[in-house]
Structures are given as structure tokens and as C-alpha cells.
């Protein structure tokens, strides 16, 4: 049972956190033919754009209402209207997703009201799906923006089935948290399909940001879940929600359509995937395919092989709550101790983390605590690289942004196979570090220092 504390510092140093609106914008990017639009000044969008381009190495569709000082003071109706019309005329999107920012929330723009007026005044966009989410930058974090946006999409776009008889038990809704990569979604899709079920992912970043070659120069998203498919989600047999952040969206789905849901707070590691397999077996009436029985064995074997290297490791992890829960959980299950856990925002999973204390803080906190507690493995996004190099400890990158290594979008964590690969990657990093920096020498024995961590005696 972990206690959650909030950093008391006035100044955040080396932020771990990113803002809510771009979390929301990323959720919209998992929709087909979508154009995410941030209602704010230009920088709000351009910073997000650069961040995602650097992470995914893809062209990123994202627009701005380009609020000027005057527009901000007077209210942004004209800018929202112009932006919607310009986007409609230029890019013919299937949906426009609007997220507010700190600027427009401080003024208090009534965007829902704006959209109503825009529709009344402009016949062309009268029926264009436009979803608005309130996501001020000065509250909450990236993960919250994603959560609010998916919930809002469910509330506004999923249609309630006309009769319960229309339900199709082979259809499954999947609501993935923003901690899952496009690679994770593809893996999950395969697993679910192998049980004869047909999943619909909302949002589906595997369709849009998995690095495929597009069919044309489309300024909107390419691939992802379509507006039609979203409206049909009310006819599914079950909803699977992954990560605690998705509970609200799953509840909204159940409330609106009656589709029951099953939460998987984790999908990385042995027990988590056993639970998934059991659930899929139950709802599909089919036994787990042979393939997964073999993969389960491989994960168990990887855990056995890896525990020599990970066992006893003092771990410092900086991540948003659900990702922290996934990776912190996996590594403690094979013997690491989660000595330092730093996160960005409140979440019910934080109390359940296998550690004494969780801090809502920044990368300076992560670095200082890791130093104080003598941690010997750091896991966080690319911004942690400076801290890890100052501490001279191995550094494993996870989460957004990952701009200084390739393949972040395909890093795999879910499924038996994802856990297996992750364990291998981390153990190889630790072994290389041991060979490079901790081989004993006559001097180190003489001085009684020895190799700096006994756990790597293998």
C-alpha cells in the first residue's frame, strides 16, 4: 500500500509531465480522417506537433485556432468558426476534435455553444462530427487529457442499440490507455482475433500512427477507427478497458449502451495476461490457442532467466500512473524493488503500487531520490537521459516522448510475448552495463568496493 504525496516545490525542474490538451489530441489521432484542433495560441499546437513528430517519426495532423491576444480577450468564437471552416474546406476531415488550452480556459470560452452556432450558421458543417473536450493546461496531465477525450467520444458518438437483440457477442470494444503503443494494440488485436472475436479499438493508434506508408497525401489521420465503427460500438458483447484511466470511458459506454465492461488495470506480466486469456476463453467459449500456451511458457522461462539480473535491482521509475503500474509491477514481480516512483497525476492505481511512497513530481525529484536511494536502474521517457547519465546508471526508455531512439511506437509490453521481450531488453541493458562498468579489477577488490551491485554476479 503506497502513500501518495505531491511535490511541494514551487518550481518544477525537468518536467516529467506533459499537458492535457495534447493527450486529448493524441486520442483524436486514433480516429480515421480526424483533425485534432487545439483551441489556443499557436505555440500550444506547435509544441505538441514537434513532440509527436519526434516520437512517432510520422507526419502529425494537428491544427490551431491561432488565438491572438485580442481574440483571447474578446473571446474565440470567430477563430473557432474560421478554423472549423478552413479545416473542412482544405482537408475534408471525417471528424474534427477540439481540445481547449490554458489560454481559452482562463478566458472561459463556451466552445460547446460556439459549435452549436457554427453548425446553425454554416450548412456545410451542420452534420460534420465535431467533438469538444475541455482540457485546460493548468490542470491534470497528458493521461487525463486522453481519458477525458475518449470518454467524451463515447458519450457523444456511440449510439445506444435500438434493441438488446442486436448485440453481437463476437464484437468486442477495446478502450486502451495512452500508455499502450501502436505495437501493443496490434498485439492485442491479434490475441483477441485468435479467439474468434472481432475487436474495435477506441482510439486506434495502431491504425494511424504505426509508421505505415500512407495511401495518399492526406492531411488528416490515415487509418484509425472510423466514425461509423464508433457509432456501432454500442452493439458489442463486451468492453475491455486497459489501464485505470479508461474506467470512466468504460462506465460511460455501459451507461449509454448497456455493454458490460471488464477492467484490466495491467496487461504486462504473467498474471495480467493469464487473466486476459481466462476472460477471452470465457466470453468466446474457445480454449486459448496453442500459440499462447507456448508463449506463456516462454514468458515464464524469460522470467526465470531474467530474475538473476533483475533480482535485487533498486529501481527508479518516472511515468504516468498506468505505465508506472505496468512496468513497476512487472519488474517487482521478478525481484526488483521499486525504490523510487515518480508520476504526473492522481490515479487510483498509485495506492496499489508495490512501493512505500509515490511522488507526484518531476525528473529532478526522480534523479535526487534515485541518487539518495542508490538506485541502479532508471526507467522513464527520453527526457530522463541526462539524469541517468549524471547518476551513471543504466537507463531504459519507456513512454512518450522517446525521441532519441527508434522504434518507440513498436515497443511491446502487453501479451505474454510483450513481457518476454521487455524482460530480455532490460536484462541485456543491465548485462551490457555490467560488462562495461562493473567488472571487478584487482583494485576494486583491494579497496573493498567490489562490483557495485551484487545482483549481477552472473
Amino acid at each position, binding site marked *: 500500500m503506497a502513500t501518495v504525496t505531491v511535490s511541494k516545490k514551487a518550481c518544477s525542474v525537468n*518536467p516529467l509531465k*506533459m499537458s492535457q490538451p495534447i493527450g486529448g489530441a493524441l486520442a483524436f489521432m486514433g480516429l480515421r480522417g480526424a483533425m485534432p484542433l487545439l483551441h489556443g495560441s499557436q*505555440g*500550444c499546437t506547435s509544441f505538441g506537433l514537434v513532440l509527436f513528430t519526434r516520437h512517432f517519426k510520422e507526419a502529425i495532423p494537428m491544427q490551431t485556432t491561432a488565438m491572438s*491576444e485580442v481574440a483571447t480577450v474578446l473571446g474565440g468564437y470567430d477563430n473557432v468558426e474560421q478554423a472549423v471552416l*478552413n479545416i473542412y474546406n482544405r482537408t475534408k476531415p471525417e471528424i474534427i476534435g477540439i481540445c481547449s488550452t490554458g489560454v481559452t480556459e482562463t478566458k472561459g470560452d463556451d466552445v460547446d455553444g460556439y459549435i452549436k452556432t457554427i453548425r446553425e450558421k454554416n450548412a456545410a458543417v451542420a452534420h460534420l462530427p465535431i467533438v469538444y473536450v475541455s482540457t485546460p*493546461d493548468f490542470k491534470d496531465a497528458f493521461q487525463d487529457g486522453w481519458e477525458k477525450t475518449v470518454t467524451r467520444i463515447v458519450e457523444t458518438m456511440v449510439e445506444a442499440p435500438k434493441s438488446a437483440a442486436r448485440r453481437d457477442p463476437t464484437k468486442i470494444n477495446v478502450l486502451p490507455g495512452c500508455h499502450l503503443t501502436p505495437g501493443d494494440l496490434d498485439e492485442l488485436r491479434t490475441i483477441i482475433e485468435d479467439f474468434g472475436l472481432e475487436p474495435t479499438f477506441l482510439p486506434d493508434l495502431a491504425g494511424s500512427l504505426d509508421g505505415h506508408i500512407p*495511401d495518399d497525401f492526406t492531411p488528416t489521420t490515415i487509418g484509425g477507427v472510423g466514425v461509423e465503427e464508433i457509432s456501432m460500438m454500442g452493439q458489442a458483447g463486451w468492453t475491455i478497458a486497459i489501464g485505470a484511466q479508461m474506467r470512466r470511458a468504460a462506465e460511460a459506454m455501459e451507461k449509454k449502451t448497456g455493454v458490460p465492461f471488464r477492467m484490466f488495470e495491467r496487461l504486462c506480466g504473467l498474471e495480467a495476461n493469464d487473466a486476459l486469456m481466462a476472460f477471452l476463453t470465457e466470453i468466446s467459449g474457445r480454449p486459448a490457442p496453442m500459440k499462447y500456451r507456448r508463449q506463456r511458457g516462454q514468458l515464464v522461462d524469460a522470467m526465470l532467466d531474467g530474475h538473476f539480473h533483475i533480482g535485487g535491482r533498486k529501481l527508479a521509475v518516472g511515468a504516468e500512473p498506468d505505465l508506472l503500474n505496468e512496468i513497476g509491477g512487472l519488474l517487482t514481480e521478478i525481484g526488483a524493488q521499486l525504490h523510487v516512483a515518480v508520476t504526473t497525476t492522481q490515479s487510483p492505481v498509485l495506492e496499489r503500487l508495490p512501493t512505500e511512497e509515490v511522488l507526484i513530481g518531476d525528473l529532478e525529484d526522480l534523479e535526487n531520490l534515485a541518487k539518495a536511494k542508490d538506485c541502479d536502474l532508471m526507467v522513464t521517457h527520453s527526457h530522463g537521459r541526462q539524469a541517468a547519465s549524471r547518476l551513471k546508471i543504466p537507463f531504459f526508455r519507456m513512454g512518450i516522448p522517446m525521441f532519441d531512439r527508434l522504434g518507440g511506437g513498436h515497443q511491446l509490453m502487453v501479451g505474454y510475448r510483450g513481457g518476454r521481450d521487455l524482460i530480455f531488453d532490460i536484462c541485456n541493458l543491465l548485462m551490457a552495463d555490467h560488462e562495461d562498468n562493473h567488472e571487478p579489477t584487482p583494485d576494486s577488490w583491494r579497496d573493498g568496493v567490489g562490483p557495485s551491485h551484487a545482483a549481477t554476479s552472473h
Partner: protein
Amino acid sequence: MSSLSATIQDVFNEPGCGKNANKSEAERKKGCTKQLQPGGAAGGCAFDGAKIALQPLTDVAHLVHGPIACEGNSWDNRGAKSSGSNLWRTGFTTDINETDVVFGGEKRLFKSIREIIEKYDPPAIFVYQTCVPAMIGDDIDAVCKAAREKFNKPVIPINSPGFVGPKNLGNKLAGEALLQHVIGTEEPEYTTPYDLNIIGEYNLSGELWQVKPLLDELGIRIMACISGDGKYKEVASSHRAKAAMMVCSKAMINVARKMEERYGIPFFEGSFYGIEDSSDSLREIARMLIERGAPAELMDRTEALIAREEAKAWAAIAKYKPRFEGKKVLLITGGVKSWSVVAALQEAGLELVGTSVKKSTKEDKERIKELMGQDAHMIEDMTPREMYKMLKDARADIMLSGGRSQFIALKASMPWLDINQERHHAYMGYVGMVKLVEEIDKALYNPVWAQVRKPAPWEKSGDNWQSRAMAQAEAEAAALAADPVKAEEVRRAKKICNCKSVELGVIEDAILANNLSTVEGVRDATNASGGCGACAVRIEEILAQMVSASHAIAAE
């Protein structure tokens, strides 16, 4: 806010700015109110510009006062290099919350400054104002003043909330902050007749270090680089330099010009891109220093060094020339002056098939014409499809551009090289030029192109998306060719002034109807060029064309 608007007005009055020079008094007063198009724009904001301009100052703590978006989404994303302190790479932000928005964020800001001084003790703290605290009325000038007095340490307010304008304005506001609060506030330990300021150079990828050894060899001291690899004290005492070089970008013209005005430091605008430009710049530096009191023999040593370096660079490049024969380059640059890159590529024997001039001035265009000939293909604005078509029609073998357009080339399986901020190689000076040539060679001759262009086993030849896109583009072109009315419509619909959204046809009609002959006349009649003024050059070209056409008619 009144002092901020005064500063902005001052920047708009900057006589050194080419765009301002093209405007009337009344237009200048309106400032660069380039209203960016909602839903059609995605450049950076003024805060972004200010931060980019100053962040390469390496030993300063850069504190962003605002919600998490401004720093949390953006820190650690530029590749400037430091030879000393790495404090500039640390992201500091007040990360203001809802309570701060309601009750004001000044207290949090003050506490943040104190925390930074206690933990990091930097020589100075730069505080960046962003939109939300500006809206709720946080007075960062007052907080910085109080902190300065309390902690006896420079705490510099940078007033650049994002919504006051685009990135470029932010660059200049950053310069104003330096002029107002930093430059001239300290004295150097000693001075020499060889003291040079470099302004508007950010040492991205450590580029400046490719040139610095040459200056070292000549005994020229970089007194302050504003801001690449710069240190606070150097900038604070930079008013004692003998001469200044303004590198490429016009971002900090106000700094160079006002330092000339206030401290009598002459400056010139030069570039270290390309062999000839590097040599010209070294010569100009030597000339100016001699003029300000350095011994005349400096020029002889400079010429000797230029001769040696040029010979070395030519020798290194020579072996690539046969490999580049017949290879064509499409150049899409943003802020970097197109002509300096054009000259560089021509030195390597590459053929330029087009270059973007979206942000170029009239002088830039003249220079490009000089280098590429009268029929230089200057591209105002290109859609992704057009860029792709250029590559695909084999009118270009490789595209050089900023990161934003990279996917057009890469997804079309065409070679591409980053020549913008996010590039990983340094292309400055003589060695940089050789490196650029080397990188182009690597990209052009990489076997990957043959691999990635192979059709998939299930693909019918000619039925991939690339050929479909091409067919569609050709069909559209053919339809236009067959329909002169429609073609004329499309031609006339070309947007000339983006700020005020004025089309070519409107301008042509106005010129004919009112017998106009000046840009001012066109502006009065159509409002075109009433915004940022960048299209004044285009309007002049339209005027010139129509005048010569009417002369031709008159002659018949």
C-alpha cells in the same frame, strides 16, 4: 502590458528590418499583425521564438512561467551544444495550477526563483512570460525586480506571451530583453583589438565550433556569441567588442543595430554556409577589426588561412563531383537563407532544380537569380503533392528541407536530407560544407532506395499509391489544360497575400481598373500586403509583368 506593447511597437519600427522598410508609416504603426489563419497554420508562437533565441545561453537558468504545456511539451528539443555548463538543458517551469490562475501566480514565481538560486546558483535567471499568466495579470517585471534586489542576482524578465505574435517576433522580443537588461551591465576582464561578437548564431549541432578554430588561429576572440554556447557574463559585457557579425538569420537584427547605435559596434550580415561565403565572412571580420584598430597584417594572415582552407575543402569535395553529375536537388528551406545553401550546393557540382523563397526578401531573390540564372525555379509555396510530383518526375533526385516536409520524400521512397534545426550534422564552415556533400552522397547512393521501391509480391505494377497519386495529379493537370476557362480560374485563384487572403485575380483586376503601378496603390485598393508585408515582393513582380505586357500591347 503597456511596456510590452511599447516594446513590440519598437520592434516593428526597427529600421534594419527589410519588411518594415517596405511599409508606409501608417502600416508600420499597425505592426506585424499577421493574423495567422485559424485551422491553417502551425508555426511556433512568440514564446517559442524567445526561448529558441535565448536558450543556447548555457549557464543561465531558463524559467518558464506558465502552465505545463509551455515547457513540459517542449523542453529538451533543440540540439544546441555547450562547451561548459549544461544548465540550459534543465527545464524549469512554474507549472501553474488552477489556484494560481484564480489567485495569481506571482508568489509561485518568486518562490521558484528562490528555489533555483538555492539549488543551482546560476549567474542569472531568465523568466519567460507565457499567455495564461499574462492574461491573469502576473507582473513578471515586478517579480523579477523584487527577486533581483532580494537575491542580488540578475533576474531578467522576457516578455513574450505566445499570443502576441509568431516565432519571429519572439526572437526579436528576446533581443530587446537582452538590450534592456543584460548587454552593457558588466565589464569584461580585459579587451583586445580582436574582440568580435557573433549575433543570431545558436551553435546547433555544435556548428559554431567548426568555425571557431579558424578565428582562434587568427587570434580573433569571440567576445560573446548571442546566443550559441554563450555565457551570461560574456553577453553582459559584449558592448566592449570591436565588431559584430550577424549570422544569416534576421531574428536579431534589432540587437546588432542597436548595439551599433549605442556602443558604436559596426556589424555586417554574413554566413558560414558554403565555401565562398565562409571566406567572404572571414575577410569582412578582418576588415572591420582592422578598421577599428587591429593591425593591418591581420588581413594577410586571414587571406593565407582562407587560401589554405579553401584548397583543403575543394580537394575533399572534388572526388564527389563525378558522382553528383546530373544529380538534381530540390531545396525547401524555411528560415535559413536559401541563397547561401544554393551557393554551397553548386560548389559541389549539384544541379538545383528549385528552391523555396517563401521567407526570402527581395535581395535574397536577386542573389538566387544571380546564382541560378534568370529562369531560377523559385517556389513560393508548395503543396505536398507538388513536392512529391517534382521528386517523382525525376526533376529532382533528392530533397533537402526541414524536418516538417521529410515524410513527403521518405514516404515516397525518395532521398531526403535534413538541413534545418533538428539536423544531426553540422554544415557550417569549410569542414561543414564537406560534411554536407558527404551526407548528400550517402543519401543519394544508399542501396536502400532500390530495396524500398520494389513492389510487394502482391502488387500489380503501376497500381501502388504513388502511381495512383501521380495519375490523379496528371488527370487534374490535363483537365485544366483542356479547359482554358477553368485554368484561368485556377490561375487567378492563387493566393498572393496570405495574411489578408487576397488572390492574384483580385490584384490583377485592381491594377487594370485603377492603372496602379506601386505596391502601395495595390495595398490601398485590395488590402494585399497589409499584413506581414512579405508578399510585397510578389506584388512587385506582378506589377512588373503587367507593365511589360501592356507595353507589348502598346507596341503592336
